[in-house]
């Protein structure tokens, strides 16, 4: 049973996006509220007016953890695994895959769309200050065993 590849139909707009370091999330056409996790209605004004839009991926790490245990073999084979919660400047809090060296509260990273090893959409955070951000994103993906 593939529990990891599952995503809700409402998140279909996160498939097929360019993996170029940019971030696309739902934005309300009526009130401009940025949404995450994906929804069917605006979290703020409840309008049925959500559209997939590019948003600013700049974010601050709220907290990071290094997982030494996972319920799924995909991850067990690659432990320890690093994830963080990040506050996007655009508003929402997201969980994202990170590199080990970024497991530090308070640092600034950039969140981007990506595709995980199961071919499902995911979010990654990478070093926005790197000379070559795209290479930094690819490095993060490589360490996480993702499709580039």
């Amino acid at each position, binding site marked *: 049973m593939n*529990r*990891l590849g*599952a*995503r*809700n139909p*409402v*998140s279909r707009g996160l498939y097929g996006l360019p993996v170029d370091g940019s971030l696309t999330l739902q934005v309300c056409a009526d009130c401009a509220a940025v949404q*995450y*996790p*994906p929804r069917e209605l605006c979290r703020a004004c409840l309008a049925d007016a959500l559209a997939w839009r590019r948003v600013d991926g700049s974010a601050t790490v*709220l*907290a*990071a*953890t*290094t*997982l*030494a*245990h*996972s*319920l*799924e073999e*995909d*991850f067990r084979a690659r432990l320890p*695994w690093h*994830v*963080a*919660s990040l*506050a996007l400047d655009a508003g929402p*809090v*997201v*969980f*994202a*895959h990170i590199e080990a060296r970024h497991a530090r*509260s308070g640092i600034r990273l950039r969140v981007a769309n990506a595709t*995980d090893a199961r071919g*499902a959409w*995911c979010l990654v955070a990478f070093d926005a200050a790197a000379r070559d951000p795209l290479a930094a994103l690819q490095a993060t993906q490589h360490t996480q065993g993702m499709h580039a």
Partner: protein
Amino acid sequence: MSSAPASYAGVVIAAPVSLPHVRFSEHGAQWFVGGVLREMLRASGLRKGEIDGLAVASFTLAPDSVVTLTQYFDMSVRWLEQLPFGGASGVLALRRAARAVQAGDAEVIACIGGDTNRPEGFHDLVAGFSSFTVDASYPYGAAGPNMPFALITRAYMERHGALREDFGRICIAQRHNAQHNPGALLGSRPLDMEAYLAARAVAEPLHLYDCVMPCAGGEGFLVMREERARALGLPFARILAAEELHNAFPSDPIQLRGGWELFAPRLYATAGVSPAEIDVLQTYDDYPVICLLQMEGLGLCAPGEGPLFVRETPLGFDSGGLPHNTSGGQLSAGQAGAAAGFMGVVEALRQVTGAASGHQVVGARYALASGYGMINYDRGLCSAAVILEGEDA
């Protein structure tokens, strides 16, 4: 502030039941819910036909529900409630049942949390826990609630200077309590600080003893009018005050407080009891950091002073400090799904009616039981609490 809840005067809680926890079970949730019902009938002397209300919380009952259970148990009732509120379900069941009894919608309500645990059961539960979990939490390491709570614990440590030893104090005191409770799953395994600190990492900064062991079990109590409890000769407790609040502080980027602090002043004022008069505290202990959030939110110490509080306050049932999670809590008795959300209320009732045998707090009169539940994404959404006062029939 919002309107104050009306008094719960005249309604009482009685007949605490806890089935012994087991790590795994081939039984269904029906077996555990029905087992609690059978034991509360035995404890109260009531016939099944005298139960006219049923409130059930269970993560593993599907495709059955509280109404299909009425046929399963061959009983007719005129009031039903199902509570998908996890760690807050016990306090919430009590609040709803008490109102129904006050209003005359039912006379005797059985409130039960019961869950089985099959070998893959916990995995299935957390992988599909909610729509947000599926999209935005589980894919990030498939660690279940360990992941968001590792992040909350990390943020709490950094914000308030908490050390692993502070969480260890909570876990070790509960393990001590569990050693005096034959029903506690881990009661036979002592825990000291050295072993706590040496445990393997699970999701840093969480280590083995910070994480509950999923198990199967059942917990429950009866709600009825005080006259009825007296007529039955049942020890009972009065509900001095009870409150709940959900998705409090939605703008907080990470959960370092719950809804308790927004209702705690009124909770104590309504009860006519101060935090210092609480004899026994039962918090929802899925992770020790959440115990600290409840201690702070419920005014037992100031916000952010949880670490200092547990350094200075012994928490064992026989410590003379603030007896906390006196049955061992989930951290030492296991987390039996939604039944874990009933543990605090059931143990509080047992303590204030002098029925806690080997882990009884001497002279316990006022108990505070707190609920916390439903990790939808990055935080627990439910906060609840009740103050009980014991009275022997």
